[in-house]
């Protein structure tokens, strides 16, 4: 090799070695969170309905829930308030970390099941029927106390198999239309189904007032609607499948802010 060439080669090598010694290239800026609440897919008119507590029809249920929270019930003659005190203090953050693992039952329970456990076990009162006005009222009142709190599923290893089941259910094709949740809500979120925009299916606002229902309903009711929508036999209220799905959806939405009680079309 001619002397001039040798110098150039060494210079290039030296430069390369120096660059390697300096460490890897600077990281690209972290990508923004692609997750968006169903709120952002709504028209301004419906968003305004949710924003203003004086206009949000769900507040009618929240107010009923407050009355029930303070009403004595069952053979115990105790109100929720007797043990739990003032809800804005004691219930803040609670809805954001359900479903949670129930050690006695060895499975996760959602907020509604937990409320029923208190009602039956502690208050010694009859359980409320699924989707009944009273149960929804208390559930919405409790969820309302977590408004603004980040969804924080418990870091509980015992939940793992149930979350995985929920993930499998979310990805499984079902019904006569043979769709999975993922096909609409992961692959086609933001696009239209009929005249409606497909949201990403985050459970940040439940229980919520759905214009389609003209009333307040739970996440389980909405999941059952979706299943009927693809012509599948819906899972029963309180079933292990629905709780597993709820658990998975909350994990998927971890970190997003609770907005209960929401309004949706």
């Amino acid at each position, binding site marked *: 090799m001619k002397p001039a060439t040798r110098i150039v080669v060494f210079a290039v090598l030296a430069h390369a070695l120096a660059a390697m010694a300096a460490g890897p290239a600077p990281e690209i800026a972290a990508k923004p969170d692609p997750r968006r609440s169903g709120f952002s897919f709504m028209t301004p008119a419906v968003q305004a309905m949710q924003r203003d507590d*004086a*206009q949000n*029809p769900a*507040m*009618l249920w929240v*107010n009923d829930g407050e*009355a029930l929270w303070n009403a004595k019930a069952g053979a115990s003659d105790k109100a929720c308030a007797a043990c739990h005190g003032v809800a804005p203090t004691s219930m803040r953050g609670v809805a954001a970390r359900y479903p949670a693992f129930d050690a006695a039952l060895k499975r996760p329970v959602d907020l509604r099941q937990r409320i029923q456990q208190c009602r039956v076990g502690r208050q010694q009162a009859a359980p409320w029927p699924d989707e009944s006005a009273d149960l929804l009222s208390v559930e919405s009142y409790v969820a309302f106390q977590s408004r603004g709190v980040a969804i924080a599923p418990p870091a509980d290893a015992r939940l793992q198999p149930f979350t995985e089941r929920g993930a499998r259910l979310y990805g499984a094709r079902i019904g006569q239309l043979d769709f999975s949740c993922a096909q609409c809500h992961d692959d086609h979120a933001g696009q239209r189904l009929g005249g409606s925009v497909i949201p990403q299916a985050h459970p940040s606002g439940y229980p919520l007032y759905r214009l389609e229902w*003209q009333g307040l309903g739970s996440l389980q009711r909405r999941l059952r609607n979706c299943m009927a929508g693809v012509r599948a036999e819906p899972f029963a209220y309180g079933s292990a499948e629905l709780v597993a799905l709820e658990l998975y959806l909350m994990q998927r939405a971890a970190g997003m802010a609770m907005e209960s009680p929401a309004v949706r079309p």
Partner: protein
Amino acid sequence: MARALITMPRTAKRGDVIEIRTLIAHPMETGYRPGEDGRIRPRDIIRRFSCHYDDGGGIDELVFSAELFPAIAANPLISFSTVATASGTLRFMWEGDNGFAQTERVSISVTA
């Protein structure tokens, strides 16, 4: 429970125009909708809403009213204004099919 939610200022200066928002729980069944059995569900709606301003000094005046039809959405919201004339009580009444009748009272303190 047909709960009502009324949002309005509780104090005002005389002559102020105050905004009142009312919400009441009611299905407003239109009378055009089939039920699970295929038969039409009978109409069951709130037909009339009124607001009276009672100044506690002998004047109890109707300041606003509305006639509602099935095209009003469930859990009706009615927003309107009234002039704060004197301290007193606003009386809100909803009446409708099947003997539905509900009254709510909210007091207001009006300063000069």
